[in-house]
């Protein structure tokens, strides 16, 4: 008799199965853990990179050695153009040669990415490039952002 009052319900579950949720999240987590680069160097120079149209992407982040050139950040504003490699300013340009020698020994196909402020005169850029040539770090990339169409 009581069966008569029983509500008829379908057997299918109304809920979305959430058992695989952690797996999905973990997968995303691992993806971001692998692609992330935590330590961004602190910039000691002001760099506003120019725009260009014919830009290429460099996929292998490991190969890139950054060199920053721009007006030095001072407490009282900005100073003269200076060169920064890794996390320190390079006062003596020939030091770049030593740094690049060491870097090339570890990674022979290093690409030097020059992040140069748009106001910097090319004379300083040439001096840096001469040092790169001495170190035979000939693969360079002028870092630019893509022109907005």
């Amino acid at each position, binding site marked *: 008799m009581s069966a008569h009052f029983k509500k008829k319900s379908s057997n299918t579950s109304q809920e979305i199965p*959430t058992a695989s*949720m*952690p797996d999905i*999240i*973990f997968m*995303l*987590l691992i993806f*971001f*853990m692998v*692609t*992330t*680069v*935590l330590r*961004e160097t602190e910039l000691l120079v002001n760099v506003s990179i*120019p725009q*260009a*149209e*014919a*830009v*290429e*992407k*460099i*996929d292998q*982040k490991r190969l*890139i050695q950054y060199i920053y050139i721009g007006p030095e950040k001072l407490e009282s504003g900005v100073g003269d153009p200076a060169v920064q490699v890794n996390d320190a300013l390079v006062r003596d340009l020939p030091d770049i040669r030593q740094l690049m020698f060491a870097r090339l020994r570890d990674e022979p196909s290093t*690409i030097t*990415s020059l992040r*140069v*402020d*748009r*106001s*910097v*005169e*090319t*004379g300083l*850029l*040439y001096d840096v*490039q001469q040092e*790169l*040539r*001495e170190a*035979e*770090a*000939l*693969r*360079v*990339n*002028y*870092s*630019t*952002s*893509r022109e907005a169409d």
Partner: protein
Amino acid sequence: MPLLKKRKKRDAEIPSASMADIAFLLLIFFLVTTTINADKGIYMQLPPKLDEQVPPEINQRNLLNVLVAADGQVLVDNEVIQISQIRDVVKRFITNNGREPQFSVSPDKAVVSFKTKRGLSYDNYIGVLDEIKSAYNELRNEEAQREFGRTYGEYKARLATDPDTGEREADVVAEKYPLKISLAEPDDD
């Protein structure tokens, strides 16, 4: 109801309901700290060191001299032109195939020499270099469209890699229009 046995059920499992929350938290942390965007820019090859370099003999007609003065004025083969004109001149120079006497004999012999004064601002430097590079890109794109019906970027991405040797299939478009931009020795002034 004596038959209903009171059974105390001990849960032997680690509660995993919060697992998703923990993973979410970590995910958000990495989402915030991550920088995916790869570096973009104009890729160039510097000339090798001076002392071991034997200056190659280049026929004058196969060489396009682009000289940029400190104020941004552009001289191409000693003629003043606008920055917007550079691209067309470079393209005409490369694809000349011996027609005009002052331009190149064939695309694979054509060399663009790029030289600037030391006082030029980097913005202008990139501006001119970008035009030269764009000229090459456009020629390669046209060639890839003509031969394979797709842009050069798509064509390049589709080049098969040999699974045994790891060597890539020859890039015939780049072979036809090899990128020969020579960063010349800077002047002292």
